[in-house]
């Protein structure tokens, strides 16, 4: 069984925000909610890098651990999903998530949180695959159609890769070997490296791992 992961190659990302647009369009996401965003560090300075980030579908997901109503579940593909019928919009997943993935539509007075929305790895939710209810709540279920997340599919420079972790790592390792530079992927230590690393804020370059 595959273990789905995102990998962002910071040497390739050009901050075109194509992934953000693709995600919003494919999943029909309301205003104010962004499942994916591109962050540019040192914008305009030497060493500027851009990184596209969404839910990384962590191995030991903090959102799932802290949820007071236990609305998260992990699919056989390692995708972390949640049930909006159970979610109460408390915001605890947002407190705990290292990547800032959980989003909340403003739902009432004083910015009261609605039901949480986040990247589904284009895998929908608990409703029947590709049903209207699933699309309305979670967006497209591309995985059920045998396709990968549209953000990665759309990426013009293939900086963002999505798919089985082993395959993704192989592609990346090959790139690093050819270009002869240190890896500039990111986030895997935090997402898949377990809790000790996450607690220390340690991240790693994946070139030496997996």
């Amino acid at each position, binding site marked *: 069984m595959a273990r789905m992961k995102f990998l962002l190659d*910071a040497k390739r990302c050009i901050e075109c*925000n194509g992934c*953000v647009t693709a995600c919003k369009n494919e999943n029909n996401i309301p205003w104010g909610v*962004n499942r994916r*965003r*591109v*962050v*540019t*560090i*040192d*914008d305009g300075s*030497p*060493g500027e*890098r851009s*990184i596209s*980030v969404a839910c990384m579908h962590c191995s030991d997901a*903090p959102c799932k*651990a*802290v*949820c*007071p*109503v*236990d*609305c998260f579940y992990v699919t056989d593909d390692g995708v972390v999903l949640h*049930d909006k*019928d*159970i*979610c*109460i*919009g*408390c*915001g*605890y997943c*947002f*407190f*705990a*998530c*290292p*990547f*800032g993935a959980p*989003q*909340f539509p*403003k739902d009432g007075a*004083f*910015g*009261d*949180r609605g039901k949480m929305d986040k990247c589904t790895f284009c895998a929908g939710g608990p409703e029947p695959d590709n049903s209207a209810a699933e699309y309305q709540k979670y967006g497209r279920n591309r995985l059920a159609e045998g396709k990968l997340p549209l953000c990665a599919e759309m990426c013009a420079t293939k900086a963002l890769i999505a798919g089985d972790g082993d395959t993704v790592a192989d592609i990346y390792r090959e790139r690093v070997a050819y270009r002869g530079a*240190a890896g*500039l992927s*990111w*986030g895997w230590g*935090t997402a898949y490296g377990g*809790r000790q690393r*996450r*607690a*220390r*804020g*340690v*991240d790693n*370059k994946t070139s030496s791992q997996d």
Partner: protein
Amino acid sequence: MQTIGHYRSMIGVMLLLLAMVMLVPLAPYALAYVQGGGGVANPGADLWRDVRQAIPGDSQVQGVDAGTLISARGEQWRQYRMEKLAPYSAAIFAGVIGLFVLYFLIRGRIRIMAGRSGRFIRRYTVADRWIHWFMAAVFLILMLTGLVLLYGRWVLIPWLGPEGFSATAAFCKWAHNLSGLLFILAVVLMFFAYLREARFKFKVDSVWFLRAGGYLGGKHPSSGKINAGQKAWFWAVVIGGALLSVSGLALDFPAFVQSRELLQDAHLVHTLTAVFVIAFFFVHIYLGAIGMEGSLEAMTRGTVDANWAREQHDLWYEEVKDQVEDAPPDAGAVSAADVASPRTDA
């Protein structure tokens, strides 16, 4: 004399040369340090350092903390809530309740030693009691709904199922957020209503604390209208209430307080204070309603038995003993408090 001077200057010069020889190779490092990294910039290392330290970048997405890539504090908050707050608070509550069960089994109900005199003294006005029971009602709602949100996942989901508990938790969140606003009002009212009586008087109150209020043996230490333990409870409610109110407002209105760091801090303050105040609340319930004969009616009927006052609040009794009445003074006029809590004849 001259030779010694020569030797001195020779040794001095040699030491100086030695120091220079040792320090010169460090010059480029010093220069690089002054220039802030110098010419050996490592973009990769700089990038990961920034990411690790959660130095925000720029993003086209306008969202809360959108520029931050990795926030390591989330994991610390998770560990606090799941591995410290939940188990330790449960242990503290169970411990306090367990101690009181044990105390009750050993000591039983503490009776009015001289028995009831059948004569009464006014203790709390209708306003005092209204404020007390208003606070009590709001506090109970907040405590129960808060504990449901903390422990419900383990305690209630097996019982109510995921859908049932989701509805319960959604209601609890809503009730908690709304009654939190009433709680602020209750804290303010309580502060002004009881402040005059609740100021510590060192002489009397230190003795009361040293003798643990007489609960562990010995007779009741002297006390005024409010004993030192009750004063401590008042200040726990007022100071704890202020902390709970400020942190609660931050958590209640995500439109105004949005950063994760602030929300995590607010949650930390809110929960630590709540655990302390709830544990103290158990003490209050036991002493006020269960463990002591004749105490509860002070808050329900507003009057106490004269003998109770003489034994438990001797200094106050001395002040008011000429106001002892033969029948409960406003037997017909206390319905307001009695609505909030049914009359309990101890």
